[in-house]
């Protein structure tokens, strides 16, 4: 009887495990936005998984200070995924399109750190996925009447390292201070 109970427990854990993994998955499912490609004036679709990340890392020159920084930043990452759509006219995407992303970001682990609403720039939301005290993922959701952009970084994102990229390789000046993260906490 005891053995049967143990087996049942293991069985239940095995069944529940995928659900738990799904619940805290730092990777967002962005396929729901694919239908916007036909309507968009311009589409950016970036899918760099861990394998490609490692391959790309081999091309960074460690002797070069700038590239070494990028290499350090992406070293622990599991993937970067971007979907960005720019439209000629307003109203090309619906609130439901955004909701599919927000629903995923309302799952356990995700915390909305910043939510900026601006008439000119639209709505900007920054989410972080925490695994305990460690950041396990980052998501940026930007929507204005003519644009929708979702950035999803999977893995331990180091905001300090990200800030250190500013001004390099075409990366604009961020102005993120090293202490900003601590201030936010």
């Amino acid at each position, binding site marked *: 009887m005891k053995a049967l109970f143990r087996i049942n427990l293991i069985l239940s854990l095995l069944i529940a495990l995928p659900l738990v993994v799904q619940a805290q998955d730092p990777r967002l499912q962005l396929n729901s936005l694919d239908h916007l490609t036909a309507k968009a004036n*311009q589409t*950016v679709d970036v*899918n760099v998984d861990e394998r490609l990340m490692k391959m790309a890392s081999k091309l960074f020159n460690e002797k070069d200070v700038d590239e070494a920084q990028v290499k350090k930043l992406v070293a622990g990452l599991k993937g970067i995924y971007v979907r960005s759509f720019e439209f000629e006219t307003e109203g090309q995407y619906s609130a439901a399109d955004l909701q599919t992303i927000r629903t995923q970001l309302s799952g356990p682990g995700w915390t909305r750190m910043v939510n900026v609403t601006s008439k000119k*720039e639209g709505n900007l939301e920054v989410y972080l996925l925490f695994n305990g005290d460690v950041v396990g993922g980052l998501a*940026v959701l930007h929507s204005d009447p003519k644009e929708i952009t979702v950035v999803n970084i999977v893995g331990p994102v180091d905001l300090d390292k990200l800030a250190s990229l500013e001004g390099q390789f075409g990366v604009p000046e961020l102005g993120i201070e090293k202490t900003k993260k601590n201030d936010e906490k």
Partner: protein
Amino acid sequence: MKDDYLWDKTGQPDLEIQELEEILGKLRYQPRPLDLPVSRQRSYFPLLAIAASVLLALLAAGVWLRVRNQSAPQPQQAEVIPAPSPVEEKKPEQITSKVVPQEVVAVNHRHRHRPVPAALSKQEREEALLAKQQLMMALRLTTEKLSLVHRKTQNTTPANQIKNQHRVG
């Protein structure tokens, strides 16, 4: 009456005792091999059922993960897809001006033709170069958006305060 028969079966046998001996003698210990009860046939059905359930659960999880991974297409390069436009001639200008305005500003030309490590094959090298381009585009876009957030959240300069005060007043 002597009780020797009762103690050591010597002397005159007592009829009553003999009679009792006959009756109880049937219950006397008789050496014989141990006869254990036949164990009942063990049924393996519950164990098999559990094993089958576990297998099914594992299979289902595997299939689910596979389908989930397959449903997420992973193109190997960044795409900039122009939408069909009534005036075809203007399209390239629109794209170049809109796609990556920062690219022209800060592309690192120093490392454009850096030799790639020899460990990668030609195909891998091409793949890695594409991945690097994608990576840089993604980082550029990410930092651009974060920069925007930063500007918005830190937009409490004295100039704005005065502006707001002026509006209110």
